[in-house]
């Protein structure tokens, strides 16, 4: 066993310690502190093992810069959610609270397993661990009807999509006789055109992943679950589970050599395009903030898919940057909702009307919310602006004309509902009846997120340097011949880009 596994070991041991602790003594503050300490220790150990390089742990897991980058993102997100949850749970006054932290750790563990997986077995293992944690968390406020409903819905849908995934994996195994991503890629290389089983297998696999990422047309569950889940858990669903599954999808796609399959690319482009358009359009119709952000997150995953489709080194760096910005912003947004919510048997502060005049009542909170909305809309001076430009740059570098058009139209539509929330907050309003009590931990978390959002929006150089370094250290390479990188060439204005071949050659820097 190599020392590179240290973050994973810490992350595995912490739930056990927490479980024993709960058995010995029920204490909310103690449990939360131990959980946070475990997460911080795991985070610190990432920097310890960073110089160790790439290590394969059994045929199932790979620990490299890619894994560690996303692990860092997921652990910080989990930590932020924990800090937001503490006072929220306290105010719910309906214990026990301790198991919440156990489920939180379980979710992080499952996500971590997904990031590192190289094999269908690890993939499924991680996914189920993640889902089981989330089901418990979504339904945690057990006196809330909506939460129970959401938990049940998530249970059923996650079960269905898992069975799709399993069936897909089985069909692919039937055809190729392997479950390892890399071996699958090599076999696919030698016999790319395969029979109906493999096609059906990939289709089912993509369906399952589409469900988990809530891409259109597999998105129907997302708004209900975002609405029903307690606000901090919604952040977890939106950020941790999506980032983990996206990271897996990107790695799987690259190792498989998906860039050589026009049909796979077409399907993914199509899904990305509809997700960007439909996500933004459906968000227009909502008056519930959590539902708006559910649809917004659908469209944001569509944006990152553009980076996946581009598949260059720039694109990978763009995806890293985008997901980092997405994590900071989404947790911030749900953090603000959490801080404003009055937990109990009712619901969170998710009605748009609740926010009327917030700027004049709690200016700092509303100001932070405004900046976060600007970031989601991709406006300066925020991380979201830099990230969106990075993704567009990746797309322009590979001439992804249609996805880029969808991205631009989508974000132009998106402006409408983000600005609507801001205008509601800025309009004058009568005083609220009972403002939610302040929560110091949560407030501090939102403040830190806000500073990060603006700091990296104005001075993104250190972040981009780190991301580019990580990308340069990666050993897994996509199976594209250099020069054939032009995967989604424009059909009509081909004349316009007469010099694209030479361009594609230079922008294809992904040949490690």
């Amino acid at each position: 066993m190599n020392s590179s596994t240290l973050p994973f070991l810490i992350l595995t041991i912490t739930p056990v310690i927490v479980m024993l602790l709960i058995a010995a003594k029920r204490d909310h503050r103690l449990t939360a502190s131990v959980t946070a300490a475990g997460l911080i220790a795991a985070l610190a150990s990432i920097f310890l093992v960073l110089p160790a390089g790439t290590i394969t742990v059994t045929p199932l897991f790979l620990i490299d810069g890619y894994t560690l980058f996303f692990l860092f993102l997921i652990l910080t997100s989990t930590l932020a959610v924990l800090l937001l949850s503490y006072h929220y749970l306290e105010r719910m006054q309906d214990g026990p609270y301790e198991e919440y932290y156990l489920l939180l750790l379980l979710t992080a563990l499952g996500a971590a397993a997904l990031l590192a997986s190289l094999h269908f077995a690890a993939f499924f293992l991680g996914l189920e661990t993640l889902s089981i944690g989330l089901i418990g968390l979504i339904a945690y406020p057990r006196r809330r009807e909506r939460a129970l409903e959401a938990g049940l819905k998530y249970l059923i849908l996650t079960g269905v999509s898992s069975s799709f995934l399993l069936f897909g994996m089985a069909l692919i195994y039937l055809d190729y006789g392997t479950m390892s991503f890399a071996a699958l890629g090599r076999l696919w290389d030698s016999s790319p055109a395969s029979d109906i089983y493999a096609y059906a297998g990939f289709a089912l696999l993509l369906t399952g992943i589409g469900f988990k990422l809530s891409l259109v047309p597999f998105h129907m569950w997302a708004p209900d679950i975002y609405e029903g889940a307690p606000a901090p858990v919604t952040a977890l669903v939106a950020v941790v589970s999506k980032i983990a599954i996206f990271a897996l999808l990107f790695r799987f796609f690259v190792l498989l050599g998906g860039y050589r399959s026009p049909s796979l690319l077409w399907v993914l482009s199509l899904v990305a395009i509809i997700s960007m358009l439909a996500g933004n359009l459906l968000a227009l119709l909502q008056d519930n903030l959590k539902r708006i952000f559910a649809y917004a997150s659908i469209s944001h995953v569509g944006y990152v898919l553009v980076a996946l489709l581009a598949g260059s080194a720039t694109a990978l760096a763009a995806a890293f940057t985008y997901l980092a910005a997405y994590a900071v912003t989404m947790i911030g947004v749900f953090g603000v909702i959490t801080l404003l919510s009055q937990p109990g048997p009712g619901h969170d502060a998710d009605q748009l009307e609740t926010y009327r005049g917030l700027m004049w009542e709690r200016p700092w909170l509303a100001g932070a919310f405004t900046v976060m909305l600007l970031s989601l809309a991709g406006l300066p001076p925020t991380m979201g602006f830099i990230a969106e430009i990075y993704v567009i740059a990746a797309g322009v570098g590979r001439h992804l004309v249609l996805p880029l058009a969808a991205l631009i139209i989508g974000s132009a539509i998106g402006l409408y509902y983000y600005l609507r929330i801001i205008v509601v907050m800025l309009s004058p309003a009568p005083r609220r009846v009972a403002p939610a009590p302040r929560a110091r931990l949560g407030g501090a978390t939102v403040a830190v997120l806000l500073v990060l959002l603006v700091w990296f929006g104005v001075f993104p150089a250190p972040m981009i340097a780190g991301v580019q370094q990580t990308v340069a250290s990666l050993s897994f390479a996509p199976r594209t011949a250099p020069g054939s990188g032009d995967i989604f060439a424009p059909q009509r204005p081909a004349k316009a880009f007469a010099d694209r071949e030479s361009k594609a050659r230079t922008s294809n820097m992904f040949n490690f």
Partner: protein
Amino acid sequence: MMLLWLILIPFLGGCLAWAFRGRHADASRWVSIAALSLDLPVLALATRAPSGAWLDRLNLPWIPQLGINFELGLDGLSLLLVLLTLLLGIVAVIISWSEITERTGFFHFNLMMSLTGTIAVFLALDLFLFFFAWEVMLVPMYFLIALWGHERRIYAAIKFFHFTQGSGLLMLVAILALAFVHQAKTGVFTFDYFALLGTPMSRATEFWIMLGFFIAFAVKLAAVPFHSWLPDAHTEAPTAGSVILAGVLLKTGAYGLLRFAVPLFPQAAMAFAPTAMLLGVIAIIYGALLAFGQADFKRLVAYSSVSHLGFVLLGIYAWNTLALQGVVVQMLAHGISTGALFILAGALQERLHTRNFAQLGGLWASLPRLSSWGLFFAIASLGLPGLGNFIGEFLVLLGTFQKHPVFAVVGAFGTVTAAAYALLLVQRAFHGTPRKVEVPDLRARHIAVMAGLAVAIIWLGITPQPVVDTAAPSLAALQASAATPGPGAK
């Protein structure tokens, strides 16, 4: 470093203005005026050490990994436009003294941020920084319209935002495409203006990228097929917002065409020039006709802007020395005269709570000062010789005549139609059966502003030479960079 301060001072002033919210309503006004006034000597200091066409330059690393620098430059053209921005900024603060009484801190914060973004747009020489500033000036203006505007403010604000943001993203794609083409040809990924000048590329590529830039700037300039946001935004905005929109923000579109769209893509721009000039002529005539048909004071002025900016578009694509000089004078004169008319519309609205001509008329007897200033600036707007607008329009038409006589001849009709709508404005708002209204006439504050603007426009009309001389080196440099295509160009 002066250039950095030029941007930082209004930014910090805006933050400070917000900090003074609540009890010290007037404090935020004074802070804003102080910050903008402080910028004037800074601007003067920045012109001390000129080198070539550039009065001052600044280059700091920003995102070196992506070839992005914090690169600013001040030449004669940007000097004039920054000066216009600062002066109209001060005017905007003064004339909203009695109009804006709610949330003054946040109002001035937004006003100052919008001005900061505009100044940065006029100074940016890195295309990424330019886009950043382009976006920064947008959001505060949205708030100004949406929060302090008139009846249909939300609709107007959202329309404004969508037009400019959608076209802005198109420009972003064009900027990135240009950077990638440059990288493919030279191996260097950069957003530096000087490096990207003369990038060799095929005809078709050049055309499409140029079009991305052109559409973004044409939307901002409210050129005819993209003009429909302008009447709504200008009409619904609070007075200060209208002044800044018409006086300064529209000029960023013209500036973008002058600085980027033509010099970066000289051949495509020349091939496209007849189309652009045609759009300019259409804007002149169509804007004037629509202005003629309006029943709302502010809408009439807004459509007259469309007409005036048609001259700017016409002159830019004529691209000879005379026409470009005309463009510069026209931009300044339009900023002053249209700004003044919007201020008067705001003053009327504040007193009579209407901008509709059906409810105005016959005001000369009761409001002699307001009405006479209205006459003066309406006359300026129609291009009376001796006032700034005349010089601008005349030079543009003269320059265009050398290139495309037909466009010049048709465009010249615009001066006739301008007389029609400007006189109609005076007749319907101020003349007619005298009517007694019990409201105060213009106060000292407004009269001082009006007098200042009047002096400026008379000065521009009688001695335009200093302005022309200031802009001449930078216009010559722009023409030179457009005339020498890169070595590998076809």
